[in-house]
Structures are given as C-alpha cells and as structure tokens.
C-alpha cells in the first residue's frame, strides 16, 4: 500500500519549468531513492512535500488523504539539504529548540553515538558542515514518524557516520517505517528498494536499483 503519493506535480519559477508532471509513490516499509544531477529538481520536490514551496498543479496525498500542514509533520520527518540552524546559538540550544518543534524526544545517547557531545557548547556557526549535518540527522532520523524524507543525507559525512546512518535507515525499515532519500551518488543507492531517476524536472525511470537504466545514468554522468 502506498504511503505518500505524488501525482502530476508541476512547479515553475519565473516561467522556467523546474518540475513537469512528476508522479511517483512511496510504499509502506520501503526505502525509495530519487537520483538526479544537481539542479534536476530533487530538492524542489522535497520542498513542495514540506509545504515550503507551493505547487503549481498536481496532488500530494498521504495514506490516501490530501496533506494538511503542519499536522503532517507528526507522521513525516523531513531533513532538508544543508540544514540551517541558528548560527549564534550553541548546538545544545539548537538541539533542544528544534527537538521541541519537531516533536522529537531529546536523546543524548544518540548525540554521544554521533560524536556530537564534545561540540554541544560550540556555536552552530563554529562547527564543520559534517557536524551540522549530524546534528540535523540526530533530530530528524530519530524522531518517531512513519515516513522519513532525507534530502542528500550523506553529504559532508565521514565514512564512519555514513555507516551509522545506513544502519539507522535499515533499522527503520525493520520497524516497518518508510524512507525516501535523494542523492546524486551511486554508492548511496545500495540501501534502496526502488529507485527513480529525475532529469530536467521529469521522472525518466522508476524501478529496481539493478536495472540497466540506473547503470546508464551513473555511467553517463561519471563526473557527478
């Protein structure tokens, strides 16, 4: 059964079509990956699901019902690309505040596991991009939800943390949850059950990660 369904969604910015009749769905207990080059529209679709951008047309449903904001965030956890918290606040203050607004239970064991504890007193602007990403994932990936949407979650992470995140995603799947990730890297899709290719704002392919189309995409875009 599908959990999140996107039907014929289009979006333009100043007459430039960024998304054109996008349709795909994410099923229950599934890890779905959306791959595409930079500026192919991956983040735009996530921002539309999040309600940050308004769609020009189309329909987005969750469990068969039209999405209502902000109620949907009790069921969906969205980690945006390059998450930004308050620069002048410490990691601890940011963690506390954003855990509150995302209804995430504060769990300092996770911060310990992600090696964030030593940085808690540091201001957000003082830490590395990887630490910022880890802080965001510690909130969005450990929050209780049915669907986890992660926009390029492995960017800026060291191999050790990436493995931890992969383990967490597998754990979520074992708990009957669904995960939707976007990426432009081949090494990230091994974890996905199904993969879609987004090119120039259009869905080119949806299917298994082992299909020839996927190899063609990565071989043809060896530079990314």
């Amino acid at each position: 059964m599908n959990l999140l369904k996107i039907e014929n969604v289009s979006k333009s910015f100043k007459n430039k079509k960024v998304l054109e009749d996008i349709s795909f769905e994410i099923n229950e207990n599934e890890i779905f990956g959306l791959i595409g080059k930079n500026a192919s529209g991956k983040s735009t679709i996530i921002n539309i699901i999040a309600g940050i951008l308004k769609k020009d047309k189309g329909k987005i449903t969750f469990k068969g019902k039209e999405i209502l904001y902000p109620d949907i965030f009790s069921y969906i956890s969205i980690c945006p690309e390059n998450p930004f918290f308050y620069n002048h606040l410490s990691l601890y203050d940011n963690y506390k505040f954003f855990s509150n607004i995302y209804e995430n239970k504060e769990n300092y064991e996770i911060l310990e596991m992600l090696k964030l504890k030593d940085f808690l007193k540091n201001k957000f602007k003082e830490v590395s991009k990887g630490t910022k990403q880890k802080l965001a994932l510690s909130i969005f990936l450990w929050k209780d939800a049915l669907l986890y949407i992660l926009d390029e979650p492995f960017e800026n992470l060291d191999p050790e943390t990436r493995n931890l995140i992969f383990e967490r995603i597998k754990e979520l799947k074992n708990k009957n949850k669904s995960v939707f990730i976007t990426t432009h890297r081949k090494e990230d899709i091994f974890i996905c059950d199904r993969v879609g290719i987004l090119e120039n704002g259009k869905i080119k392919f949806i299917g298994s990660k082992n299909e020839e189309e996927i190899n063609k995409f990565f071989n043809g875009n060896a530079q990314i």
Partner: protein
Amino acid sequence: MLKFEIIKFFKDKKFIMFFMIIPIFSFLLGFLLYTISPSNDKPSGFLLLSNSLNFIYPFLCIFKSLFGSLTFSSEYEGQTLKMLLIGKFSRTKILINKIVFLFILTFLLTFISFLFNIFSGISLSNFKSIEIQGYVLKTSFSLWILTFLTFFLLIFPIYSFSLMGLFLSLIIKRLFPTVLITLIFYFLLTILSVFPKIQNFLFPYYSNTLLDYFSKIVKGIDVPYFPFLYFFILVNFLYIFIFIFSSIFLFKRMDL
C-alpha cells in the same frame, strides 16, 4: 515558541548591543539636558522629560522599524525559516509569535529608554514641583499618571513602524534592501505628516500630537478638549491590524 524567540534574542550579543544603544543614548541625553538647564534652581523634571521624549522618539521609531525588518530577513538569509516551517507550528502561529515578540520588544525598548531618561534626571532635577507662569506648584500624582499614559500611547505608533518593517521584510526577504526601504518609508511618512490634508491618517502625526499635548500640559498651557486624539488612536490601531492581517495573508500563501 515565544519563549524561544526571547531566548534566541537575548543570546545574540549583536542584538543586545543594538538594543541597548537607545536606552544608553536616552540616559546620556537626559543627563545632558538636566545638566545644561539654564535655571539656577533644580529644573522641572517633567519639562525636561517632555523635551527628551521629543528628541528620542524618532530614534525609537527608526530602531524599532529596523528590528521589525530584521525579524524575517534574518530568518530568510540564515535559511532558518524553512527549518521552522517543517515543524509542528503553522505559518500563522510562527508569524503571530514574531508579532507578539515584536510588541514585547517595543514595550521593553521604549520603557527602558523612558526609565533611563527619568533615572538620569532624578537627582539633577525636580519632579516634586513644577513652575508654571511664575508660580511653583506641587506636582500631583496625576502628572505621573499622565506621563506613563503618554508613554503607553506612544508605544503603538512605534509598534506600527516595527510591523511595517516586518511586512516589508516578508516581501523583500533580504536584510539590507529591507532596512533601506523601511527607513525610506519612515522618512516619507514623517514628511507626509506635515501636510494637513492627509496628516490625520498618518501615525507619525498622531505621536507628534501626543508629544505636543504632553509638552503643553507640563508647561501649564491650557489644552482644549481634543476629540481627534481618539481618532488618531483608532487610525493607529487600524494600521496595526492592516499590517498584521496583510502579513498573515502574504505569509500563508508565499513560496519561501
């Protein structure tokens, strides 16, 4: 959320420094005015207070319009606004929290500046009596009530300026242009309030009239009953509602 807005503000050293400029300026101005008063006796504190309020008031308006324009443009530029939108609060609730916080800030900034001004003059001037046309009269408690009422009514036009800044920051989204356009609007409204045909509809004129009233009462000049003051108060509230509702209307429908 409101609690966090307050914590967020008071943990930012730049904001605190910015916030404290006006009260310190108010303290120094009060001190200067009370010290250079030509009278041999201790001058009337109320009279000097009315003069310094006239002087400080435009700065309060400018600073508050800057705070208002910082409210959203800093969230846009820091890209933290989209982080707020993917949480449990609706757009309307996020905006209302910011509007309430701006009111608290306006109240605090005006009140602290006002108190600093009184403190700076309390030992140097005379708040116990007032000299009117050669007669020395003991000040009654009602003058203090009038002073605080004037202060309270002055908050609303200052708040209108900060809401104007907030509304413009929603449209412009970037810090520097927002601040610049807010200041242009401030000066434009102040200049326009000189013209009699339209001045009744502009909130700078309301505050100037209020200050003028206060100044005249303190000087012992007879002030006629002035029903227009109520009209000004209503116009000012109308501005506040227009800014709040148009901000909510815009924020609920816009792409971020």
